[in-house]
């Protein structure tokens, strides 16, 4: 038969209760933080994995920030190019109307005036700001407007070309994939030989405004200008297509990132977040045990042979 020494019996009962209480404290900490893993030692594997997932989420947010910026830039470029395209269409219609045989020199002067307005509008569109301190068509390194407002010539020194691709003057962002954040205005508003649309308009405005110009001169100038505008429209369309393609790619990329984000969050939650049902059940178990230990201890401790002597 085992002898149970009195002091030891008390000590052991107290130790057992202290253990239960510490378990209850642990449950309470989990319930109050909502986390299963509060210290790395609670589950080292999960803690390391959670840290990796946190970093992965941070990277996804960096990527999102980058492509968000690209989207903003590309949308601005797209809508500006839309306006450029409208202006060029309008100018082209004016040119057709100027070529009408019945036009008097006064009529042509009026058209010249309108074309001159289109030319100013195009220069201001080409020099659009991107809302982030730069220029939509500035290309890389642009801190000043890409075109001179009065002459319509590219501002010297020409923006330096960057890496990537065949379109010098473009800037890129993104980690997994790269997106353009700037368009090179020279590739849109000027042809390969460097003749700008503004110059073409200036020329035709000059000819149409000249009351002494011969019909043949006018006709030849109109034809040259129409060709220039058509080529310009084509370049604008190309640029818009490129921007649109990239915007579509960004949409797909964003969806993928959102999925990755959701996935990482779910895994993170599985790793460190608390299963409340299990935690509450644990808490109840430990509480019942502590109560039982207290009740029985109080009853047993009260028993003593001395009471009967």
């Amino acid at each position, binding site marked *: 038969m085992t002898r149970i020494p009195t002091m030891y019996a008390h000590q052991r009962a107290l130790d057992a209760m202290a253990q239960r209480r510490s378990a209850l404290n642990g449950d309470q900490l989990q319930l109050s933080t909502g986390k299963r893993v509060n210290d790395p030692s609670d589950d080292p594997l999960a803690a390391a994995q959670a840290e990796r997932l946190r970093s992965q989420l941070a990277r996804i947010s960096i990527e999102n920030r980058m492509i968000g910026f690209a989207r903003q830039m590309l949308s601005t470029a797209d809508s500006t190019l839309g306006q450029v395209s409208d202006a060029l269409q309008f100018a082209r219609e004016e040119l057709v109307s100027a070529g009408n045989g019945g036009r008097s020199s006064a009529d042509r002067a009026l058209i010249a005036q309108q074309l001159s307005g289109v030319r100013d509008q195009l220069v201001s569109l080409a020099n659009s700001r991107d809302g*982030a301190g730069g220029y939509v068509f500035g290309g890389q390194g642009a801190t000043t407007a890409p075109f001179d407002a009065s002459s319509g010539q590219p501002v010297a020194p020409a923006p330096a070309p960057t890496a990537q691709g065949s379109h010098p003057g473009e800037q890129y962002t993104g980690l997994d994939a790269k997106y353009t954040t700037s368009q090179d205005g020279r590739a849109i508003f000027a042809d390969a030989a460097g003749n700008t649309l503004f110059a073409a308009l200036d020329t035709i405005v000059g000819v149409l405004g000249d009351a002494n110009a011969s019909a043949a001169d006018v006709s030849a100038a109109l034809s040259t200008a129409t060709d220039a505008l058509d080529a310009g429209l084509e370049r604008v369309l190309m640029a818009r297509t490129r921007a649109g393609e990239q915007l579509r790619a960004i949409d797909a990329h964003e969806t993928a990132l959102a999925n990755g984000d959701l996935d990482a969050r779910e895994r993170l939650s599985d790793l460190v977040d608390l299963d409340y049902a299990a935690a509450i059940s644990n808490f109840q178990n430990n509480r019942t045990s502590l109560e039982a230990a207290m009740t029985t201890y109080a009853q047993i401790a009260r028993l003593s042979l001395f009471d009967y002597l």
Partner: protein
Amino acid sequence: MAGLLGIGQSALMAAYAQLQTTGHNIANANTPGYSRQEAVFATAGGTYTGGGFLGMGVDLVTVQRSYDRFLAGELASSTAASSADSTRAAYLERLQRVLASGDDGIGAAIDDLNAALADVVNRASDPTAREVVVQRADTLAQRIRNADSQMAALGRDADDQIANAAGRVNELLTQFAGLNGRISAVQASGHAPNDLLDERDRVLLQLNEYMKVTALAQDDGTVNLFAAGGEGLLVGTRAAALVVGADPSDPSKQRVSLQNGTATMPMSADSFGGGSIAGWMNFRDQDLAQTRGALAKLAGDIAQTYNDRQKLGVDAAGAAGKDMFAIGSSGVDFRSALDSGSELAAAWPVTAQLGAGNKGALKISSFDLAGATSASAVTITFDTAATYRIVGLPGGTVTGSYVSGATIAQDGWSLTLRGTPVVGDEVEIVPNASPGTDGRNARAMITESAPLTDSFATMVGEIGARTQSAQASRTASAGLLSNAQAAQAEVSGVNLDEEAARLMQYQQMYQAAAKVIQAAQSMFDSLLAATAR
């Protein structure tokens, strides 16, 4: 009648002695280290008469304590083991909190720095974005410094504790030596000085809380003490002492040595074998040293990753990038070296472009800077559609055959071209004309720093696993200690119910013995009355 009186008296004395012992047990029921005592009786023998041997009563042989040498030894060694394990686990729990994970951690600081770099990639000309990078680099450096200085503080704390414990061990050894002397002095009486022995065992148990001590009993009643490594701690009444001083091989650390007379020998965690001193030493020399080493390595990797990229790039003014982080000579004196945002080498010194007069469908697929470049202006000219010639390289002209999609790597940069060139087409590598607006190198910093957060996560996992295993050891050795305590208490502990029963039992014996004396007296009275004439 004298015999009966004597027997009654011996029984009375015996019952009284046992009652005294029971009283002593009850009085010390809650004294730590007390061993239950009991009076040992034997018959006083008999005297021969013609009718046989007549008993002479009872003798008190001695008072002995309920004590098991082996159980006491087991209790001592499990105390040492449990004390070492719980000390180490408690300090590891503090250490793992120094390496906070989550948003306050070093990993998050790296990610924050990268987020700021991403803004520079988006708009390299924005001075605010560059300034944020400087701030974030500073925050990262600060977090690493904080973690390291907190670890250093934990090490100093452990050193202080070791020094205190060594002082306490010396006091206990002196006490033990004193008790040895007192015990051997009374040993000659032939009876065990139970309470002194308990006291000495209690001191031995306290010693084991600090270090593992092996006891070897001698014939003269003294006990000699040895450390786990066999070093003699105490012989008879002569005690050695622990001395704490700076470690000659590493003055930043404290070393404990054992001084025995004029001989001094250094003590390792192994020679302590257990106890809290071994726990602190193992924590300091293993866990803390390795974790600090891992942090220093991570800091070195961080510095190298960003500094290497800085060196490849050029800053906003076009000057070669300086280091982003500096590591001091002592430990992890990790500092941010960027003074202003314009010093961030976000740009590459060179860039690639197609020749202005190209006729073919040649396109630049990608351009990358992987190593140091001389930033020389270079022209790649296609002499045929399948061969090219690179002019302007520091090493002279290079020729190669062209395959669409293959990479041309020279002078630190690598270039991938696609499409078919026409003879005379050119690709130019030119110095970057506007480094203040280029964020390509910043982007490379972000992509190349990915392994850093991963190593931090590994560190968190490692310290977690270390702590978890220390906690498991603590639980296991605490269980063993509890078992040893239970086994010893079962033998030596006082049960008050038992003592209550003894009290009754020997009270009755006392009363009976008194009756024997009363009977002897009344017999004597009867005899007197019968003979009184």
